[in-house]
């Protein structure tokens, strides 16, 4: 028997998917032209599935800083912070992130995935209780597997259910640690953070919020959903990433807790992996400076989110109620979703196809992420193409008024 036999079910599903058209998990761009445009199979395609919320991947200051850093400090650090040393750039970036969030300390990780993996698995030890939102990202679930704590899931965005589960733990020893996300990456909905923070205070728990999709995007100063909800003082740890609004790669955690830096010598996903290369540290530092001083970026991605959301809602698609940079068209029929996604790629718009079981409630999703770098014309064009193809394939009801395919540019 093949060592891969355990994946037979997955193979069958994957083959059914690729029989219909392209492999959505293996799309290969010939060229990336800008934060919003690429070339695919020799043809231009609009990018609406990148998580490049602020469009900073081509920011000139970030590019220049990155090139300077390579020339000055080389292409890589060739080791971990604890074994091979910290570069001045790492320490400076940590200071800046802590300042950005108004917190005492920050720790930089090599990816956002490792930030969740490291922080959550380490602060929740044997005898502790981790309470995670049921729709949590895979990195949070994987952190739970690595943690020695007891793991309890609460119903998605349901503070009453969370409180009920905390009450069931009454009388048991151990810390209670709640984990939720600011902006959820699949449906683009936000956590009821004010209510969750109230439960946290009442029950004496700790609170970790993953602001991967909301940093730089939500809040007057870009500090994410906790800023919007006015509960920053209640959040014991904020986790985030450099790979979305900051346009590079890496992750971080910030906290006001005095012993936070102890994590540097107990957190294995921090200790036993190479640190970020100087070029990345430099571009992230430059982009962080930009979002700390340029309020227009956040305002623009919000305005663009509303434009896309309104356009798709008016066309008649089933999308969530919140106009956030993540906007997902919900489709009950998986096969239809796959055909829709393929036709959109052929039509010149790249979005993300998300299928069960990676999605909540067995829904198939055509997921878009909006950027501050999108022009209004690009958004309007994408909406027209999505609406036209959606009607052709019967994703939209036939009663909707006839929609014309926009002319090629």
């Amino acid at each position, binding site marked *: 028997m093949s060592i891969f036999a355990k994946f037979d079910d997955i193979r069958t599903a994957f083959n059914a998917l690729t029989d219909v058209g392209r492999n959505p998990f293996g799309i290969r761009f010939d060229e990336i032209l800008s934060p919003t445009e690429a070339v695919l199979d020799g043809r231009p395609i609009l990018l609406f599935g990148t998580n490049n919320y602020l469009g900073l991947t081509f920011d000139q200051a970030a590019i220049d800083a990155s090139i300077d850093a390579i020339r000055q400090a080389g292409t890589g650090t060739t080791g971990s912070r604890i074994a091979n040393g910290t570069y001045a750039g790492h320490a400076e970036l940590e200071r800046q992130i802590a300042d950005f969030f108004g917190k005492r300390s920050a720790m930089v990780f090599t990816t956002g995935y490792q930030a969740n993996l490291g922080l959550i698995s380490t602060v929740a030890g044997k005898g502790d209780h981790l309470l995670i939102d*049921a729709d949590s990202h895979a990195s949070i679930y994987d952190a*739970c597997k690595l943690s020695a704590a*007891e*793991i*309890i*899931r609460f*119903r998605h965005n349901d503070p009453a259910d969370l409180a009920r*589960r905390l009450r*069931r*733990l009454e009388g048991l020893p151990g810390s209670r640690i709640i984990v939720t996300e600011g902006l959820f990456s699949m449906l683009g909905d936000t956590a009821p953070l004010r209510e969750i923070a109230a439960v946290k205070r009442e029950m004496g728990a700790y609170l970790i919020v993953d602001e991967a999709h909301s940093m730089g995007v939500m809040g007057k100063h870009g500090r994410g959903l906790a800023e919007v909800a006015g509960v920053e003082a209640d959040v014991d740890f904020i986790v985030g990433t450099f790979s979305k609004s900051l346009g590079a790669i890496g992750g971080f955690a910030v906290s006001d807790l005095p012993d936070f830096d102890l994590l540097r010598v107990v957190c294995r996903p921090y200790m036993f992996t190479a640190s970020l290369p100087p070029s990345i540290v430099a571009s992230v530092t430059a982009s962080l400076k930009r979002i700390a001083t340029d309020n227009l970026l956040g305002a623009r991605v919000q305005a663009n989110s509303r434009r896309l959301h309104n356009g798709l809602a008016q066309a008649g698609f089933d999308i969530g109620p919140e106009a956030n940079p993540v906007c997902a068209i919900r489709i009950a029929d998986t096969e239809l979703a796959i055909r829709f996604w393929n036709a959109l790629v052929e039509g010149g718009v790249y979005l993300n196809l998300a299928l*069960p*079981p990676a*999605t*909540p*409630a*067995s829904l198939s999703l055509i997921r878009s992420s909006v950027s501050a770098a999108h022009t209004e014309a690009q958004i309007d064009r994408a909406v027209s193409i999505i609406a036209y193809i959606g009607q052709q394939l019967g994703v939209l009801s036939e009663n909707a008024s006839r929609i014309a395919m926009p002319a090629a540019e």
Partner: protein
Amino acid sequence: MANQNDNIEAEIVSVLEERVPAGTQITPQARIARDLGLDSVAVMDFVMDIEDHFDISIPLDRIAEVETVEDLTRAVEALLKDKG
């Protein structure tokens, strides 16, 4: 004890019946994911219904050990006993 176990199992089956296609045969040996046509997310949603029904939380590592209706009955019984 056997009697209480039977009751727990009957309650689990009644919660499960609402999630599987009508007419699906649910036996104690039925494997919840493989035999009853629930995908992994649907299984987790079903587990939350069970948790609400019995007013317990089933930790993830305990869920991972559950394959059949019988396994789930035993896990629920043990958690109810802990609760006292």
